[in-house]
């Protein structure tokens, strides 16, 4: 399953890149993120409480950054175990492209997601919609934070 989207940001590429590497930013962007701790340059430990309808399960796992190409983009991969619910992982290839006027940037992403165990066995009808929703939530709130910060106080 492939999910693609892009956003126009009225910010420089460097500014967006910095945010992409700021764990506070990331934490606030990850839907239902309860804990995010940096373990190394490229690895963060995360705890997310995922709620989909009546289901409510805590996933614990890692977020890793790879294919790092400052300030052009990286791949951010989250994988977590949800106990009896199974496991889920999602990987987003994020690309930053400076627009012609240099004052704005296009952030595009391509997500692939995978689920294991009970969520795959019982929730197949919801996998794609949920993956789309979560990636939209993540990038949506990431972008909104950036936009909000950019507004004059």
């Amino acid at each position, binding site marked *: 399953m492939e999910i693609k989207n892009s956003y126009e940001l009225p910010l420089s590429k460097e500014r967006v890149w910095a945010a992409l590497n700021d764990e506070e930013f990331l934490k606030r962007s990850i839907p239902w993120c309860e804990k995010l701790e940096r373990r190394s340059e490229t690895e963060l430990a995360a705890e997310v409480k995922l709620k989909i309808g009546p289901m409510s399960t805590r996933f614990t796992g890692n977020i890793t950054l790879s294919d790092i190409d400052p300030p052009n983009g990286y791949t951010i991969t989250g994988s977590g175990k949800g106990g009896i619910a199974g496991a889920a992982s999602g990987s987003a290839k994020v690309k930053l492209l400076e627009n012609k006027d240099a004052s704005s940037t296009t952030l595009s992403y391509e997500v692939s997601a995978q*689920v294991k165990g009970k969520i795959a066995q019982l929730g*197949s009808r919801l996998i794609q919609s949920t993956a789309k929703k979560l990636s939209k939530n993540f990038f949506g709130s990431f972008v909104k934070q950036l936009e909000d910060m950019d507004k004059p106080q």
Partner: protein
Amino acid sequence: MSEGIGASVLRKEDKKFLTGKGRYTDDINRSGQTHAYFVRSDVAHANIKSIDTKAASAASGVVAVYTGEDVAADGIGGPICGWVVPCRDGSPTKEPPHPILANGKVRYVGDHVAVVIAETLAQAKSAAELVEVEFEELPAVVDLESASSSAEIHKEVPDNCYFDWELGDEASTDKALESASRVVKLQVKNNRLVPNAMEPRAALAEYDDVSESYTLHTTSQNPQLTRLVIAAFMFQIPESKLRVVAPDVGGGFGSKIYVYAEEAVCTWASKKINRPIKWTADRTQAFLSDAHGRDHINNVQLALDDNNKIIGLRVDTICNLGSYLSAFAVSVPTYLHGTLLSGVYDIPAIYTNVKGMATTTAPVDAYRGAGRPEATYLLERTMDAAAREVGMDPTEFRRLNFIPKDAFPYQTQVALQYDTGDYEPQLDQAMEMIDYKNFENRRSEAAKRGMYRGIGVSTYIEACGIAPSAVAGALGSRVGLYESASVRVDPTGTITVFTGAHSHGQGHATTFAQIVSEKLGVPLANVDLIHGDSEKNSFGMGTYGSRSLAVGGAALVKALDKVIEKSKKIAAHLMEASVEDVEFNEGKFAIAGTDKEKAFGEIALAAYVPHNYPHETLEPGLEESAFYDPLNFTYPSGAHIAEVEVDPATGVVEVVDWAACDDFGNLINPMIVEGQVHGGIAQGIGQALLENAHYDENGQLLTASYMDYCMPRADDLPSFKVGYTNTPCTHNDLGVKGCGEAGAIASPPAIINAVIDALSPLGITDMSMPATPLKVWKAIQDSQSVAAE
């Protein structure tokens, strides 16, 4: 009304089921019982780096936690493969080990990693969540066509190929294909199914440390074989130290033939903890770990001469056998499939090659029909494709190629010899039942309503009554396939029958009693059947392959003949006549030419109260056993015709009519036979229109509940018209052939042929199973865009 052979008597077993008094494995409880829950792999393929059971072991209520290491330390073996075949290159079937708890590696989602045994099921589940398994993931192997070049699943199985087998004469077949005036080519896929007996598998295992013996209650179609495999091959204990009971079993359809890891683990562990252990699958576990069915890709080439007569058939098959070789996995696509490729047709040259592949999916084994539905599907789809190509009505094309009725016994080019059959009257009758000749009127009427109506025919044969042991043995079976029966006559003349067959819906308590009633002239109410308990029943091979009556019933007749023979001697003594003069009719022994007679009950009494008895020549008592090993398979055949309507706006296929005319030989209880036909057709309709086990590319089973695996429900199906012809089987005393699988074998191609016929005005010539609304709609869309171009 007669209660004997041919009477539709009501079933003796029904009342207990109807009043909730059936006793299935999960209904049985023992004091001190514990509950097992299995930790299963949630990845398709991985090395196990570590399993940490500490937290689970310490959890509330936990009695024990075991892993594959514990099993290996006790030297417990895995389930064996019951049938192997030689490969084309002369090498044997590759048989990788199949540990009952994974040892170092997992090979499908659902593979057993550990077992947690606790005081309650809830505690076992909670503790199972605490078992930490670290996997090193390996690539999943899901796609059948690329399996040979994918990641290695077992080191013992190069190229993920368990076997590469052939049957028939390749040279003469290829020659026929070369010289043919037309070669019809077709690729068909047989979708993967989950048997879904409504009762999930379950086990209750106990160990008695005084007698040092185990008792296992389990959901099995053949408890005696389960005992043999667990005792002799897995545990290496005397078979007498294991009693296996299959009480009431809620359907099997093949999936309960095999010995599974769970029941073996529970049995093994019951000794280790010295307490009874109960395990019951929930439905999702059943989806993950029951043996699945079918999953073939067949490439077919059919050679025709100038007169549209078939002169050759070549079928190249690859089949998905999953992560481990299940007990009869190897026989299904080979000797239960390749040998059926002649169908009901006179085909002078046949060759088939079958590659059995390993993938990281659940093991695949027999499911109702087992091999024969796959053979029938490819053949009947090809017959329709050929008829279309040569511009003949599909029924006429079939008639042209039927084995003529004077050709029996008929030797096929693929090893079997059909003893009897007559195929034209079956087709005639089915066509009459569905009013075939006026179909085009119905098609036009439907077209006025905007619907596409189609009709589809399937004329099938199956080999069942499995099986002559010598033949099966020569073909790779590691077991015999006879059946046993014992008849115990009580002093008052009531009778208990013991059979090695097992009833899980087939109604043996009734049919077997009818045979007794017919032979001994006793009322049905005086006959009881005991089955499914290795401590009570003689060794037998259980129920599958439509064999219970043709093999088990024949054994029963032999045992009854022995009872009658002995009774005659007793009667002769009592009536002071010679044995040769004793005639037995309708429950009475009479001396020819006199008015002397004795009722069967009087003979029984004399046998057990032998005050006046020929002690010099006869033992007291009246109890006889017999084993019966058939001389040949039986060959039921028939014609099924489906009529469907397709809604082009939604792609929905509705089955609007069904006619089935089958030849099962003699019928013991027509009511039960008809029920078997209905059930088989429903499962075939399920395969053709609704059911599909879908693994994603990572080997996750996405159809693991009834939310996504589409089971046929009442409103998906029509009522069925069922009729019969009869060419009695020549080699068993009852003249019976077997009826359990026919519907499931015959029906899928009838439907798909009907769907293709319905859509033929759009130029559609292919449709794969299941023909879901999405798929049918898409085919219609594609045909329209092709037409537009």
